[in-house]
């Protein structure tokens, strides 16, 4: 029977080859946003693994205000349960190519030799003493785990003072304070105490809140990116129509097979094998394509560049480390979404034909 199914496929090789490529292409289109959303969540978790338990920012009715470092740290350290308070300088500068995240680092000298990512070299403030060499690629500077790549590839580090200058932070102030607590379970209680400890109004975000913010943002962007599936959906509908049309052409053969002593089960088995011979290569090809777009060399990764429209970055995708769970679940979801209608269309026609009167498909049902 397998041989028969293979022979059937080879009777129309071009059509089946096109179908394999179409299925694989649609699977890639559907899986790309899902994998990237998953990678962003995993990246956020990896990046925030060492982040402070609570982040405190000074706020007034106008908006965020720089937080004075010394009184801030003193006030935070006065609360029982707080073990460490760090002042942090960071912010976002608008460049012609999009936003660039800048982080101030105390350990860096003002004139260390490194460079800004190429895409942003024209975004330096024009009438200041900033040079490209002042900026340092964040992910290169810090030994971060590879999962963080999607979140840090447009982040750079500067010396503490130059960051303050660039972000307009007065001397002795920081963007926010990072607070570590002794028992993570006590975060909520410590937050309540902290809210009364400062002489200015503050807003606090806990580690879990930041993590869920990242996750929500990732999934919202992922949902938006799903709009990129609209062409995929149209493609899928066309494909299902093509399959149904092809099956309609096969219906005479199915009727004939039944007339020659095949049972509905035999016909279904043949259709199933025929379908497997199309979807197995399509799955393999789709998996190879997805692997190339996310985990392959740069030329392949540039195929994922349109995702930047939804996720807000530029150029080729950063190479992602392989995460079996993220890739596996996205591939399974995309496979279900794309392959299910194909399988349904293939088998439904076979079932319909095999359950119908076989004579109806042969010679007009014996009209004579």
């Amino acid at each position: 029977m397998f041989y028969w199914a293979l022979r059937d496929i080879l009777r129309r090789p071009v059509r089946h080859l096109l179908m394999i490529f179409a299925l694989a292409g649609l699977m890639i289109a559907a899986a790309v946003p899902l994998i990237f959303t998953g990678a962003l969540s995993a990246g956020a978790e990896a990046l925030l693994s060492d982040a402070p338990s609570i982040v405190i920012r000074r706020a007034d009715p106008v908006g965020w205000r720089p937080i004075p470092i010394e009184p801030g740290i003193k006030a935070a350290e006065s609360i029982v349960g707080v073990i460490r308070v760090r002042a942090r300088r960071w912010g976002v500068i608008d460049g012609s190519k999009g936003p660039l995240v800048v982080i101030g680092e105390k350990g860096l000298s003002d004139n260390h030799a490194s460079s800004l990512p190429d895409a942003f070299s024209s975004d330096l403030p024009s009438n200041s003493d900033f040079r490209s060499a002042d900026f340092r690629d964040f992910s290169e500077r810090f030994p971060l785990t590879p999962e963080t790549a999607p979140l840090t590839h447009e982040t750079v580090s500067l010396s503490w003072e130059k960051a303050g200058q660039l972000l307009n932070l007065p001397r002795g102030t920081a963007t926010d304070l990072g607070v570590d607590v002794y028992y993570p379970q006590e975060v909520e209680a410590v937050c309540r105490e902290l809210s009364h400890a400062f002489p200015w109004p503050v807003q606090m975000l806990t580690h879990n809140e930041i993590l869920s913010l990242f996750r929500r943002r990732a999934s919202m962007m992922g949902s938006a990116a799903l709009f990129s599936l609209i062409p995929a959906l149209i493609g899928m509908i066309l494909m299902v129509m093509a399959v149904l049309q092809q099956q309609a052409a096969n219906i005479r053969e199915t009727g004939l097979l039944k007339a020659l002593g095949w049972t509905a089960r035999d016909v279904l088995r043949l259709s199933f094998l025929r379908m497997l011979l199309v979807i197995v290569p399509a799955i393999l090809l789709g998996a190879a394509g997805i692997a190339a777009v996310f985990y392959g060399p740069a030329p392949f990764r540039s195929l994922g560049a349109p995702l930047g429209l939804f996720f807000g970055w530029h150029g080729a995708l950063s190479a992602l480390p392989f995460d079996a769970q993220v890739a596996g679940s996205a591939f399974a979801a995309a496979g279900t979404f794309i392959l299910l209608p194909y399988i349904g269309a293939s088998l439904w026609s076979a079932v319909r034909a095999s359950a119908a009167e076989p004579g109806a498909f042969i010679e007009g049902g014996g009209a004579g």
Partner: protein
Amino acid sequence: MSEGIFCRDLELVRRGSRDQERTIFTDVNADFPAGNITLITGPAGSGKSSLLYILAGLIRPTRGEVLDGEEAVSRWLTPHRDLWRKGVGIVFQHFQLFADLTAEKNVMIPLLPKKWPYRRIRNRANEALERLSAGHLSQMPVHLLSGGERQRVAVARALAADPAILLADEPTAHQDPEGMKIVMDVFAEARDRARVVVIAAHDPRIAGIADRHYRFIDGRLVHDRSPESQG
């Protein structure tokens, strides 16, 4: 009830578009006993082929039933009719061969679901072709064969699974006297092995070997008992 196929109150109505209806035949009561060759004749469009289709379980009648022994097989559920149909061999008027396959592969088709080893299926197909003196055509694609040769391949395909019921629609229409003899010998052999053989034909040469003769007249099947119609 003895062995064979029996029709009871059969009626076939075809429906076209806009509720148009055409009664092909009605009130057909006929017996096709095992070990007999039954010939059905009638003018073109009288319903000969349709009756064969109903006997083969390929279409349902609009009324009445077909009995195999005492079982109303025409009303069986599809999976049971599918299994029953494995015991039916049919030769179609227009052969219904797979044009892009060789003669051997066409004859193999009814045997494929049997889960036999491939070699056994192939041998059985070639034996059937040999019986029809078409062994030499085995590896020829069907579209290269003549009408008569194709018809013999179609008969070989119907015989390959050694069916208990053999139905043939104009099986000699494209045969020369030699081909005609080969085909008729095969049917006579099936009769001798207590098979049900039903032939629908115009060909007067067949009447010579038929044991029973039915004739379609004005949408009704009439048993022709005249001596000249009996073999």
